[in-house]
């Protein structure tokens, strides 16, 4: 019996499975190590990267901490951010782009200022993480300040379902909490303070 193609869920790019990477433009010249004379780097960023470089026997070890610093400053690993790191570390932007695209915490496309990672791995999804993720997307709506991302296990299955809001772990979440998270962030308050992991006692102890 023939399969009705309209009944098969597909991703935007037409495939039934999520894809890997975007295609590479093979006609472009490879970028070289940026020239310090023509690449202005903010003094603070330069100092932070150089400090990281001094800690390791091989300066390249500072690539990840340097990209963290640049992403914090620029909001994402933009071509400018990558170029500045490359300039200080004397590496090619290509090398750093390869590193940045490997790790989940680096974004090579523009993103909102506040990272909301919702864990949707096994333990959290057994406790309704997929609903929380949908509610979080709803709550953040089209607000450009928020970068909501479903994340692999964040290592806090004891408070499942949970999320990390700019590094602050909160859980166990209910759908109504998602709106609270958005409100708290906007008001500059600590996020869902009563549900923060930092205050949790060990399991089995009296509250």
């Amino acid at each position: 019996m023939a399969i009705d193609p309209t009944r098969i869920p597909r991703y935007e790019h037409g495939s039934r499975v999520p894809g890997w990477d975007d295609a590479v433009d093979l006609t472009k010249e490879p970028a070289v190590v940026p020239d310090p004379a023509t690449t202005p780097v903010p003094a603070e960023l330069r100092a932070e990267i150089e400090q990281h470089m001094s800690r390791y026997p091989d300066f390249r070890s500072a690539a990840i901490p340097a990209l963290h610093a640049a992403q914090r400053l620029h909001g994402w690993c933009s071509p400018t951010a990558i170029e500045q790191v490359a300039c200080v570390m004397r590496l090619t932007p290509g090398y750093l782009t390869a590193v940045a695209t490997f790790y989940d915490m680096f974004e090579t496309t523009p993103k909102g200022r506040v990272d909301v990672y919702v864990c949707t791995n096994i333990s959290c999804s057994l406790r309704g993480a997929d609903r929380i993720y949908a509610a979080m997307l709803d709550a953040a709506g089209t607000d450009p300040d928020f970068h909501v991302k479903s994340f692999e296990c964040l290592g806090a299955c004891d408070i499942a379902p949970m999320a990390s809001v700019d590094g602050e772990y909160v859980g166990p979440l209910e759908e109504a909490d998602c709106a609270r998270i958005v409100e708290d962030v906007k008001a500059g308050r600590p996020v869902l303070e009563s549900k923060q992991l930092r205050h949790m006692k060990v399991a089995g102890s009296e509250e």
Partner: protein
Amino acid sequence: MKQLFYDNLDQPGLNTLAVYRRDRGGYEMLAKALDMDPADVLHELQASGLRGRGGAGFAMGTKASFLPKGDMDKYVVCNADESEPGTFKDRELMQKNPHLLIEGICIAAHAVGANKAFIFIRGEYQLQADILEAAVDEAKAANLTGKLDLWVHRGAGAYICGEETALLDALEGKRGNPRLKPPFPAVQGLYRGPTLINNVETLMNAPIILRMGGGEYAKIGTERSTGTKVVSVSGCVQRPGNYEVPLGVPSREILYGLAGGPPEGRAIKFWFPGGSSSPVLPGTDEYLDLPYDFESMAKAGSMLGSAAIIVVDDSVPVMDVALKTAKFYRHESCGKCTPCREGTNWTEKMLMRMESGEATPMDLDIMASVCEQIIGNCLCVLGDSMAMPIGSMIKHFREEFEAHIEAARERNGLGMVA
């Protein structure tokens, strides 16, 4: 029950040097170790029988003894990239008792003659990394780390970096791709130098072993699985959390006694004994009565892994868990080895076919054969880590998969397969 880590772990201020020294005899064991010959420290660690707490369960003392003697630059790397789904023990230990880890690292560094050490912590653990950094600064200011140059290095989110050689690549500032072994890190690791790489909980055991004596420590637990183990229990249980138990307690005691068992009116369908990489075990008495230690879990066809128990109750279709598992490993495969890169990708695709109703029961056999061909054919065990649980789910719940496939076909108007 004997508790080495969780005894009053919530004590306020335990993360500060002052309280750690005053109430826990902090850094006394480091002083004792520094007075001992490195070979004697190594001997104590070997006598304890301590096995790695990260997943592989390799004897820690033996691993340390593989490092060559001599004056070359040697490294200790603490693997704090806890990313195995279901595992969250290191997070709590580091957050609440960071100095115990630092003391353990210093002792291990003395035992192997290392002069530089790094704590590679996953980037998502920002609170824990801040706490560790503050603790390292305190220890350095009090001149406790001596000649050892110790730094906290934050990762940036990649499951594969928990694999030791991928972690070393990440620490060297590259994409986290595993390396061909041998050479093992003990001989050629970080910056091509001899490297001891151990999990957080393993290193935290070092000061405890020195205090008790290796022989005395070995009396806890079973003969070949010594010591206590922090077990992370999560999923469909009433009291998820970290529980410290001596190795060898009945699994039932952890799942039901400590974690409270499944929610009211539900039964355990199956459970992962050691993180999402471990083959699942059904929730029957035969398996629940097994002692929770390295040997018994291996004998039952699974593994202790990182000791993260994920419980799945009978309200959850096995297909959902299989799809989540496959999706995770497909996303986290670094792409270096073909069997893993393609195998995880195709396994997810086949599971999605089963969901969408395009699959036939034959696809189950194809999927099982894809999984079989991943195992043992890659540089690291990430692919195996998907293949083994998926394979075990097919083995234990084949009928449910088949029924699921049939139901999806009918929903899709494709009818039954004769």
